């Protein structure tokens, strides 16, 4: 039992060392996940729980008829490696879905999707 406790303590001690390395999850987005907004947004901001690799990360947008909508390339802020911004073309009111994929700085890949609605 002492060995088990010692090994647990060893692993727990290793956690702060690896603090900048892990899977990146979506922490929040603007517009918010599942939200309905009154005005057409010019961009979608995504904030992740870990730093992401710009070369291996990106996002796409589909519209009310589930067809792909051309957007600007994802923008990454060197000062904030946990953020990705997708610039949007002029949108009509409707239901939109953002599909994102990122690779965290420790090379782990995660992906996700969320919707938002633009009110008429």
């Amino acid at each position: 039992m002492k060995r088990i406790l010692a090994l647990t303590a060893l692993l727990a001690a290793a956690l702060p060392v690896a603090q900048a390395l892990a899977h990146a999850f979506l922490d929040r987005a603007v517009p918010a996940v599942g939200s309905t907004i009154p005005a057409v947004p010019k961009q979608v901001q995504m904030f992740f729980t870990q730093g992401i690799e710009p070369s291996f990360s990106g996002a796409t947008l589909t519209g009310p008829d589930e067809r792909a909508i051309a957007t600007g390339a994802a923008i990454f802020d060197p000062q904030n490696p946990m953020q990705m911004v997708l610039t949007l073309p002029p949108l009509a009111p409707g239901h939109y879905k953002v599909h994102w994929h990122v690779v965290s700085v420790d090379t782990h890949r995660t992906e996700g999707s969320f919707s938002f609605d633009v009110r008429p």
Partner: protein
Amino acid sequence: MTSRSSAALAACAALSLIPSVAQAHGFVGDRFFPATILTDDPFVADEMSLPTFTVNPTGPDGSKEIDLGVDISKRLTPDIGITISNQWEHLKPSGMPSATGLGTLNTELDWQFFKNDPHEATALVGINSSWAHTGRVQALGADDFTTLSPLLNYGKGFGDLPDSVPWLRPFAITGNLSVDFPTKTQSAGNPNPNNFNYGFAFEYSLPYLQQNVKDIGLGEPFKWMIPLVEMSYSTALNRGQAGQTIGTVQPGVIWSGQYMQIGAEAIIPVTRQAGHGYGGVVQVHFYLDDIFPNSFGRPIFGD
């Protein structure tokens, strides 16, 4: 830790691998499946449960048992993994002195043969072995025979449901099916039947709700919690015990962080053979692929 295992760990750490995109533990498309406590996971991983502390319900014979378990899983390739597990047991039979010691050693070889990202579905087949004479046989009732159990584990998230039913999309189910083939038909005059084992975990992922369906403003620690109900049954098939079933239901919650998860569940016996009263289990589970992303946390081959 022995000098040999220290050297092995150091050797692993020294492997400076060329960066490549890694997929790890329970990710299938948008879905993250946590490592459940009772139900075998439907994915291979580099993870370790340390410890799993269990206070069992009172046995049908009045005995009380506390277990302290450990298991470690390691990917050999991105799709093939092994697991080794054992536990320290403290058994207090009714009206008799207590006994402590190791239980039966278990090993498992798994192949994650199916993965469908859009439908958040995955499955693996494997074989579990519990090894004879690896625990205290007479004092604790550890097995004096080896049992081989081919198994099928599966997982399915419901994120592919239409947006018209948003609150159902965070649901997921994992399950397992296996059959025990003991290598001795009886031990000390008691039969060792073939058993059919089946279990399920019903999960409602608050992280999935928050990140993929609707940001309802959950804060720490709730936005990383996955409430779940697990259930496990084992039904004897032959040797005079056909139809006898041991079953428990375990409601609880798992909190999943960046490097580890912590799970806590109540243990409720649902068949007479499973005992009576209530028990509980707490598990600390480490994601080795996140803690050691460039060394021990990667598959040995093929990544």
